[in-house]
């Protein structure tokens, strides 16, 4: 029994506890949703990577600020396959797609290569996001109590 009117505009929302173990869950759902929406097979790896990086970033931010609320991930299948990752940690105020692109241009000499720390992974994560997502946007939530990361991919059909 098909209901194309509803099906054509499917939104799936995940609420993930801010725990690294659940980032994989988000990747699996992202790949399943993207495939179902009609994102081409060659791009699925990029969707999986980008959603993983975006969720890892959100989980790290929640952990850094001790925020226990869930991270929200929304998948929208419309004219494109869109993914929004919403965290609830204090917004840094200056993090933007622009800074992501700058990070992408970083030479590795600029990174803190000696440490096991988050900043290295974060800079690398933004570099990966900047490279596989063409319309990446990271904006602060209105009250600064979170950031909203959005990205999307074209559909084949």
């Amino acid at each position, binding site marked *: 029994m098909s209901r194309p009117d509803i099906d054509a505009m499917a939104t799936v929302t995940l609420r993930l506890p801010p725990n690294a173990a659940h980032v994989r869950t988000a990747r699996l759902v992202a790949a399943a949703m993207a495939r179902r929406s009609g994102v081409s097979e060659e791009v699925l790896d990029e969707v999986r990577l980008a959603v993983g990086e975006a969720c*890892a970033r959100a989980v790290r931010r929640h952990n850094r600020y001790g925020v226990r609320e869930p991270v929200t991930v929304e998948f929208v299948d419309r004219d494109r396959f869109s993914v929004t990752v919403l965290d609830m940690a204090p917004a840094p105020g200056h993090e933007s797609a622009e800074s992501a692109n700058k990070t992408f241009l970083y030479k590795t000499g600029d990174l803190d290569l000696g440490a096991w720390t988050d900043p290295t992974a974060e800079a690398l*994560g933004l*570099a990966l996001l900047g490279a596989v997502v063409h319309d990446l946007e990271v904006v602060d939530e209105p009250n600064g109590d979170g950031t909203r990361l959005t990205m999307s991919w074209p559909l084949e059909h």
Partner: protein
Amino acid sequence: MDLSLNTRTQGEHTVLDVSGEVDVYTAPALRDRITDLLDAGQHLLIVDLGGVEFLDSTGLGVLVAGLNRAREVGGSLALVCPQERVLKLFRITGLDEVFTVHGTVEEALASPAAG
């Protein structure tokens, strides 16, 4: 399967086979294993990423830190990475210029720099 780590000795080298998914959840186990090997005096490491199905920024960060730790103790950490889709991550981040990356373990062992 998430992450599986196995080590074997090849002459002076220790080969660490990594397979499965290296991400924000599993990367600490990889970090701990590399640290343990270096602490145990196994300073010439070859990390074989041939069985890796997924690698994220946390995994890359752990490898970078492992390389630095290895160098600090006068050792080396070379990578074996036969998969294009994993190699691509190193290129995007510029890390292909930081690591010595080989196509096979044999090639890594035969390399004069051997890591």
